[in-house]
């Protein structure tokens, strides 16, 4: 069995800046990084491979933020990290028409790539991405592929064609037995992603990263269904650090502030 892992190179929101004149977030200037929870998905795939259940791990990543040329290079660099962890190869879907189109198009493109470049019975991904946090793409990909779907998995074990998953919803937890082929989204709690060694990082340079476009996938697009616009939220925190000589004084000052602010 081969495993496809969906990895997003997401905006690293800790570098977010907002133009004070237009109040727009300067999205083009924010660097990309591997979306944290997707690392857990890669880790889980590696563990399955090391257990002798999977042969190959392929990472699929779709660019959703422009400018496309700059982002393609950034994504190539970022994806080295998951290849160094132990994934075997990567596909980056980089197409201007995919920018600003939303998860519906992302899912179509990812599903087409998964179908075209190999035979994958298991698709793993993070429960949500750190920039958008919509949790939409995994179910949408399952719908496109007509695979079974289990989301928010916090543990999984594979036995032949059956996958046993423990997963977490708002009100309850479930233990599910599902048959392959499947799309499974995982939460942070499922594992602790490994840090690649220097040797692995060096060896990963040889692993293939393929850049493909919508024409390679024969993906036709119709009119956009949503027009997106963004506005920044200005942070207006006071950022006052309380100075003190003794812990006694710190506590007194803090109680004063609590009294004042709770009115």
């Amino acid at each position: 069995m081969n495993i496809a892992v969906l990895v997003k190179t997401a905006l690293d929101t800790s570098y977010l800046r907002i133009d004070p004149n237009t109040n727009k977030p300067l999205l083009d200037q924010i660097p990309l990084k591997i979306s944290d929870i997707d690392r857990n998905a890669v880790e889980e795939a590696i563990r399955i491979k090391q257990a002798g259940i999977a042969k190959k791990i392929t990472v699929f990543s779709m660019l959703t933020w422009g400018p496309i040329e700059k982002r393609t290079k950034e994504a190539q660099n970022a994806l080295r990290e998951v290849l160094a962890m132990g994934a075997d190869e990567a596909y980056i879907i980089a197409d201007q028409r995919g920018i600003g189109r939303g998860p519906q198009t992302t899912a179509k493109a990812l599903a087409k790539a998964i179908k075209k470049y190999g035979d994958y019975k298991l698709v793993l991904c993070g429960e949500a991405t750190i920039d958008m946090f919509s949790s939409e793409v995994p179910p949408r990909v399952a719908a496109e592929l007509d695979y079974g779907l289990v989301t928010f998995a916090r543990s999984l074990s594979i036995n032949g064609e059956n996958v046993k998953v423990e997963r977490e919803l708002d009100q309850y937890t479930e233990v599910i037995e599902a048959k392959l082929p499947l799309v499974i989204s995982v939460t942070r709690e499922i594992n602790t992603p490994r840090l690649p060694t220097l040797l692995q990082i060096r060896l990963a340079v040889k692993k293939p990263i393929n850049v493909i476009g919508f024409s390679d996938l024969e993906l036709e697009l119709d009119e956009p269904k949503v027009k997106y616009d963004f506005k920044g939220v200005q942070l207006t925190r006071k950022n006052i650090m309380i100075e003190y000589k003794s812990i006694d004084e710190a506590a007194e000052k803090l109680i004063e502030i609590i009294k004042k602010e709770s009115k």
Partner: protein
Amino acid sequence: MASLIIGYPNEIIEIAGAISKSKDHASIFKPYYAVALIHEKEENQLQEVKELGLTKLYVLKTTDKTSTQQLAKAILDVASNQSYKYIFAKSTKMMKELISYVAQKLDMPLSPETNEIIVKDSKPVLTRSIMAGRVIMYQEIMDSAAILLASTKSEASKLDSVQTEIEELDTSKYQDGSIRILERKEKERSAVKLEDADIIVSVGRGFKSKDDLKLAFELADLLNAQVGCSRPIAADLKWLPEEHWVGLSGKKVRPKIYLAIGISGQPQHIAGINNAKTIIAINKDPNAPIFKYADYGVVADLYELIPKLIEKLKK
């Protein structure tokens, strides 16, 4: 044009309240249809739903063994009778899975965690907060959309004045052998209502053991506050039930004072506290990101400062 509301009876009522807050909703969303999910263990709570003015109400009985895939099939079946421009549901994990799947099959975009529905040039514009609360995204819907609504306080409100026709759906015909639920466990609940709290004392990994949390509870008692926590405390360590969890996947809170103790300040946590009036942070590490988001910061060891606060507040 028609809209389909999907959810448990209490969710449908909440959604109706949220929709009717938006002026002009009738002109773009009417007529309203609904699929009510009724768990076999629950009493029939449809009376209020029947009074909302829905054109048609589909009733879908569920059990502990009903999978979301099974529900998806039932909803796609309902949607094949008539085309719906808009689908409404609550923004829960289950609905994110179910409605995203359905939306892809119906070729519809989706807006999760929708805060507001604005009507502009007879088109809905949906807002939601992204990038850990630092950016508001406006989505102008060109044709159709699934809309998952964030939690709001809203009164039950009538959507229309028509009589409701009711049809029961036979859930068993949507059974799917490929996914079996072996076990379903209700999560541990606690009575805490963080959304309504004036003061929240919130705990993070700075606490070294579960037992030490009693410091926070004692402080909270003295301040008449509720206790919140960051993701690791609820999700990894399970020292507190999830009702205490503040953040993007937990509760979004708006207290007068949010007192973050031993919380480093990950963007996902900050996303849950952006609406707090005043944020106070206590952390040993002067470089903890939480200080950037705080009104007041104290660099101190919580094991020294909290007992001192408790001692002084007791006087």
